[in-house]
């Protein structure tokens, strides 16, 4: 029993065997030791498990590990360039865009996906772009501002 899978996670070739019904989130967390993606709901309603799969933002709780063969996955653990934080990460810290921080990895992945597609989003585009990620602490104010600040910096 189990599916043998080869994929690329944060640039590293990985191999794992997982049960057919195991979701990518559990593969990342329990088999690959990447616990940055969180399970807030398990049903695609909170975005805390967001990762980028073949260039598209997805909830890793709604993808099977079995589907990962040959796929490229980006997670929060691969966002910084070594010791240098991604501008989004730096602005989240500087702008106090996190309180408890459990939604933060998902927000950062979603914001990253948004800015890749739209480097100069309006406030409304940011708010709708991040609507799949729930935050209960901040009221989103400082999150939106941090994304605006990072986008500005990234546009140079």
């Amino acid at each position, binding site marked *: 029993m189990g599916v043998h899978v080869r994929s690329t996670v944060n640039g590293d070739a990985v191999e794992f065997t997982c*049960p057919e019904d195991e979701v990518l989130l559990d593969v990342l*967390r329990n088999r690959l030791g*990447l*616990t*940055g*993606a*969180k*399970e*807030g*709901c*398990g*049903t695609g*309603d*909170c975005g*805390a498990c967001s990762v980028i799969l073949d260039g598209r933002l997805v909830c890793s709780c709604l993808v099977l590990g079995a589907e990962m063969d040959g796929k490229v996955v980006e*997670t*929060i*653990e691969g*966002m*910084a360039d070594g010791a240098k*934080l991604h501008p989004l*990460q730096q602005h*989240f*810290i*500087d*702008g*106090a865009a*996190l*309180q*408890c*921080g*459990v*939604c*933060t*990895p998902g927000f*950062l992945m979603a914001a990253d996906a948004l800015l890749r597609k739209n480097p100069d989003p309006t406030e*409304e585009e*940011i*708010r*709708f772009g*991040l*609507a*799949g*990620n*729930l*935050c*209960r*602490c*901040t*009221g*989103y*104010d*400082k*999150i*939106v*501002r941090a994304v605006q600040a990072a986008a500005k910096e990234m546009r140079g």
Partner: protein
Amino acid sequence: MSLDSMNPALVEKHFKVIGTRVARPDGVDKVTGRARYGADAAMPGQLVGLVLRSPHAHAQIVKIDISKAVKLAGVKAVITSADFPDHTQGDRGMMDILENCMARGKALYDGHAVAAVAAIDAATARKALKLINVTYKILPHVTDVDEALQIHAPVLHPHIYTEGLSEKPTAASNWNKHGEYGHGDVDAGFKEADMVISRSYKTEQTHQGYIEPHSALASVSPDGSAEMFVCTQGHFVYRNQCATLLGLDANKLRVTASEIGGGFGGKTHVWAEPLALALSRKANRPVKLTMSREEVFRCTGPTSSTSIDVKIGAKKDGTITAAWAELRYQGGCFPSNWAELGAMTAFACYDLKNVKTVSKDAVVNRPKTAAYRAPSAPMAAFAVENTIDEVAKAIGMDPIDFRIKNAAKQGTKSSYGPVYGPIGIGPTLEAAKNHPHMKAPLGKNMGRGMACGFWFNFGGQTCVDVNVTPDGNVTIAQGTIDVGGSRASIAMAVAEELGVTYNQVRSIIADTSSLGHNDMTDGSRGTFSTSKAAIFAARNAITVLRDRAAKIWEIPASEVEWRDGAAHAKGVNHGNRTPLSLKEIAAQAGQTGGPIAGHAETVADNAGVSFATHIADVETDPETGRSLIKRYTVIQDAGKAMHPSYVEGQYQGGAAQGIGWALNEEYVYGKDGRLQNAAFLDYRIPVCSDLPFIDTQILEIPNPNHPYGVRGVGETSIVPPLAAVSIAVTNATGVRQTHIPMSPPRVLKSLKTKKK
């Protein structure tokens, strides 16, 4: 100088670190995915724990047959209430907690735990749950607070006789507590009034909605020692409660707090933690028990649903002559005093000659409720502030002027009894009146509402260790959980006190075996009380540092003073010595008496009450009843804002939660007593596109009860939004909104009454 005596001069002092916006020490870990939350840890050989829960709202548990589950390969333990002998020694409150963790004889709500398993993996554990055969005898149930108080309602507990009545009731009922507050003569007051308004209000049950589900990783050894890694607002409290419930010695149960993914009161009680420990003890292996989101909604502690009647009378000149309210709150399936708290807070913003509140607390077949950020106050404020608004309009006065005229002030006898010292409601109202938001034009279908809120705040037991490292840096061990950035604030306080930079100071959350007892992070006490203890600990460390410098210089310690991060010799004989820095003293610690540290324990009583005023602009679609928040402003007194960004964050977060509650969040129970919407899909917390930027105005009126003038800020911000938003919708639609949440079907229906 006694450590407890406050120096008012400090409040005025010029701070170097306090008030800046430094980066939090856990920031990098949290943006890189390194931070470890409840479900992120693992122990060698750990099992997966899962809980079997009652599908019935109220049922006798006739029999639980676990024999098939026990025999399933891979199952290592199955537990029921039989595995929890009563160690509570007659403590009814602890017994209720135990019974809530695992049903004893009766399931009291949909989701009540009846058994739990530990197995080698989740699939096996799920199979095992299906093999447990529970025979229920279904009993009639009640989930509505007003129905529960009816004389013919099904009674949950035969031992509950209403407390607080002058005559003991002759029969058990769901009405567990009666309370009364107030002063003066309300009947006489209403006779004096030119205008009297009476209204009834309802609010539905909401959940704290933290994004991280509860998770505990427990390991109990055969020798009785145990450890647990858990997300909690108070690991010492969890340690104490779990030790009591399982009959363990507290010193042998070491609890390490994970990073916590939100709590807001929902992680102040144990739920699954005793089950994880009991499973581990029985299986003799570590057990990880993580709740699903559905379990979080069905089986943890949401807040009360309520039913409130308010009556307020006023003269044409705007003087309130009398105010009365009856507040009925359900506390879930065990006794509580949430209505009583609501009764205390209801009129706390106002200076009233005649005031009376009556509270009725009830039990219903819903989960045991927990605190939710200023518990009970938002619902009471919703009912009272709407009535205030209506009275003001009825006598033709601007609602904000009406509030200013009647606002409580220093010397006012509060509606809950005591006379106020200096308080901040007046300044928040004046700031609101002068805020540009109040003068901004409104668009079509828009309305503006403003409302006030009050919360007590408290301090509690706290201790802090400050240690100087041999290289001259500083570590802090604090025992209060950091939910929103308090490690940064605590390090700022110690840096300020020692006169060193923020980067030289680092704070961590110590485990329960490394520090004395600390109360939970609740009641807006985290930063207030921990910074107080940290300041005292730093002062104790300074005493040691002065002593060490004196030894190095071979002069009396009384001739050494500490300023700007260094010891300075004072007096004519020593004045020319070069100051000794923290680093230089630390380097010689071994030769001057050993490690350098300061420790302090405090009970931070007299935290000081807190007030806020909020302004909301709402657009309501008259054809669909949907309301959108277009602009929102929070004005609140923070005392001294240690880290302004985090204070703003508390204001914004509380407002957002209150907005969600006002518009869409609610527990929906079916006729069968089962929760219909135990998921984020249909329990609708605000998403990013639902909200505008939330403007904040921090008033810094120094709190005389803290060395730096700090006041707790975490909770009050959730008190006014239900009222402010509902008054805004009322103004947008022309129909008084009396039922929270103002979901579109409810609002559209209310508009029908207008057309008629």
